[in-house]
């Protein structure tokens, strides 16, 4: 009996700091970027918007949302001028100034024009006439990054500050490929891209996406509190529910249920 009481006491003590919410003593900032189903300013909706709303609700903090280019978001996160952003992926450079709380995981695909006559990633890389469009500051899966870096060295990359111009450039054959994620599927239909393109999968494992937290803006204990909030959202199925608003249930489950191995 005594042993049980002691164990309960230890558990209470150990979880008590985690139970405390994030510090809301100041208004926080969160950057959104326009990107397919993640966020659309036209409709003011998207997965990131929903995730942000849930975080705000659970934390009780005042968080100002801003729409800005992704490159600008990374710049501000690095400087500590922005507290959060969403659906970010990491790399060693970003790990220097940001920390992440993963909530979805998905693969990357190469969306390539049919008339480029490309069957594989290597075919695309070999043909010097083919160009790819990317969003400035975006990183992808390992294979995607390798392809982009290789084409960048060959001056075969067109940068964009957003996703929409890339679809237009692809449609106009100014670029012959771009890298997409499941968030972009509905846009393919909307922009009538599907008919003129095909998808080539990178042979990479799914890449986790998560809340981006500025190390400069948020102390480590605060980062842990926000990470706990996200983990709670994953654990109680909130993330899956949000994804189901935008994706078929199977895909939503695949994207939400992943092993978090930071």
């Amino acid at each position, binding site marked *: 009996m005594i042993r049980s009481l002691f164990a309960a006491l230890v558990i209470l003590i150990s979880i008590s700091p985690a139970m405390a919410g994030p510090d809301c003593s100041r208004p926080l900032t969160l950057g959104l970027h326009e990107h397919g189903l993640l966020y659309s300013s036209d409709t*003011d909706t998207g997965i990131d918007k929903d995730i942000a709303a849930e975080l705000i609700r659970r934390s009780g903090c005042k968080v100002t949302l801003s729409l800005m280019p992704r490159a600008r978001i990374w710049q501000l996160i690095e400087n500590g001028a922005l507290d959060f952003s969403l659906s970010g992926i990491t790399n060693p450079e970003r790990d220097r100034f940001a920390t992440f709380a993963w909530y979805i995981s998905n693969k990357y695909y190469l969306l390539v024009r049919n008339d480029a006559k490309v069957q594989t990633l290597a075919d695309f890389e070999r043909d010097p006439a083919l160009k790819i469009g990317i969003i400035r500051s975006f990183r992808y899966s390992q294979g995607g990054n390798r392809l982009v870096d290789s084409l960048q060295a060959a*001056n075969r990359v067109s940068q964009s500050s957003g996703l929409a111009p890339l679809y237009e450039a692809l449609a106009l054959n100014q670029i012959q490929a771009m890298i997409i994620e499941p968030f972009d599927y509905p846009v393919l239909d909307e922009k009538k891209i599907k008919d003129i393109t095909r998808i080539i999968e990178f042979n990479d494992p799914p890449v986790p996406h998560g809340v981006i937290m500025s190390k400069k803006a948020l102390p480590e204990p605060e980062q842990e509190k926000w990470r706990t909030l996200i983990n709670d959202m994953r654990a109680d199925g909130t993330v899956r529910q949000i994804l189901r608003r935008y994706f078929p249930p199977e895909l939503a489950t695949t994207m939400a249920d992943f092993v978090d191995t930071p």
Partner: protein
Amino acid sequence: MSRLRPLLLSALTLALALAVTWLVWRHERRAADAELSAQLDYALRSVSGRIEQRISAYEQILLGAQGMMTTLSIKDRQAFSRYVQSLQLDANFTGIQTVGLVELVSEAGKAAHLAHMRRAVIADYSLHPDEEREFHAPIIQREPYLGESRNPLGYDTWSEPVRRQSLERSRDTGQVSITGKLRLQMETEAQVPPGFIMYLPLFAPGLPHDTPTLRRANLVGWVYISFRMTDFMNSLYGEQPPGLNLQIHDGVEQSQEHRIYQSGDDVAGERRVSEYLLMAGHTWTLTMSARQDYPRQHSRDAVLLIAVGGTGLATLLALLTWVMVTAQARAQRIATLMTSELRESEQRWAFALEGAGDGVWDWNLLTGEAVNSPRWKDIVGCSADCDLSTIERWKALIHPEDRGRVLAMMDEYISGAAASPSFALEYRLRCCRDSWTWVLCRGMIIARDDTGKPVRIIGTLSDITERKSYDEIIAAKGRELEHLNTNLAASNTELEMFAYVASHDLREPLRMVSSYLSLLERRYGPGLDKDALEFLGYARDGAKRMDQLVLELLDFSRIDRRGSPLTVIGLSAPLAQATGNLRVLIKEAGASIIIGPELEEIQVLGDASQIARLFQNIIENALKYRSPNREPVIRVEGRRSGDFWDIRISDNGIGIEPQYFERIFGIFQRLHTRDKYDGTGIGLAVCKKIIERHGGTIGLESEPDRGTTFIFTLRDSALSR
């Protein structure tokens, strides 16, 4: 193949060097390309960032106006004018053409709008184009209301698709919206630069606008800022690097129709990078291109240098390789030729030496190795397979009696103590046979090390066994001859002694015979008959001639024994003495003695009394054997002949038959009977002996009945010095 080798190596070197050059060139070119791309990308990113910042700044102006309008009516012209004035738009905002208000007017509210505007603002206010549609969006206010901004208000922006699209997007998103490329309504010139407008929706104060539906329901108008694109770009902070061209197209299509900005000349650059800039719902395509001169100004310009320098170096390397390879080949050819010539030379020498019967040897003093020619081995008697590969082996072959001497002399020579460039040794060697071979070994040091120490000696070996045997024979003969000479000298001495003693002792009995004959004649002469007296006279005459003979024989023997030492003498004095002694005889014969004047000068080595005797005997001989048919003429002459004087005494006497030329110099030799010519036959023998004692010769030339010339030689006095 060997001839092609230098060419192939040079070509290979050239190919390798060119390949390396190509690799370096390609790497450098890629690096330069990457650098150029990075610079272009950076420049483009810089421009796009500045555009974004500028747009963001203008967005703040619009947001300020939007915020002000949350409490004021869009019709409050004074408040808006003050707001714009408060912005203090200075040179940094020269991109702004005007800040204005657009009011949303429904078709139903159009009349009221017109009435209000004509009453409150401009009397002749109207919408233009004045068309019937669900909504109108006329410009109702421009600030500052100056210059071109004073163009008539009332332009219905809803009527123009580009503006309307942006107005609708702004309305639906509640965000700033940027129009596409357009001609600003306030522009009056025909050719004006393209422009664009930023719109931000204004909602009725106090009413919600959180959703698109609410925004549409509560929209009252827009605040906008219009821009000339060139002015907008000129208002950006920072400066664009020279050599770069920037083009901005509206949307993603990069055509002339969509181009809204271009810096610099419209020259297609080699390099270009593009970026799609999505701002406020609208896309601009920024294209940064580098003009031809940009890389030289800002990039590494080593590509050309590497290409030219690398190619030049490759060519030089190939040439150098060719020179080195061919030089080696040339050197090899020369070395081969020299080796061949050396070999031929050695063969010739070996052939010559071997042909001459000499063996050849070659010692390495450092290793102790010895090389001997076949003839060498043949001389010593070694078989061809005999091991003579070391100097020590050679030492073992030397005769024990010679070994010490030979090795000592060799050591002396090698050490340099002998100070001679070569050496020659005679010693005995023996290899496989019982007999010893006498050899003449000649050698010479031909190589020394850096310290001057001898390292190699070569030489020849000659078989002198035969010569040695001859030497021994000659030596034996010499010894024998010497012995004979000794015996002969002793014999001569004894003979001379005998002759002297005999002649001396013979005179005593002769004198006794002669004395007793005289006593006999004196005491018993009167009693003797004529025959007895005649016989007694013969006996006494015989004794007298015998005494004369003994006397002359005694003189003859005294020539060597009692002669004076040879000294420098003139000939005139002895000659005068001789003619003086013969004065009576000369007179009786009526002879003429003609003496050459040179006789006065001649100085010879001689014994004066014997030379006088010599002259006297020969002149007396000429007087004695004078021709009865003519008066005797005797000439004495002298003539130099090398180190000697030839003295000639000629007469015109009876002459001598040539067969008697040798005989007349023999002792007691007479060509005539005593009856005809008196004499002992010793005179000319004495002359010959005198001349021989003086180291000269004596001979004669004669022709019967014409005369005789005696010629003898005497050494010049100069030989005494």
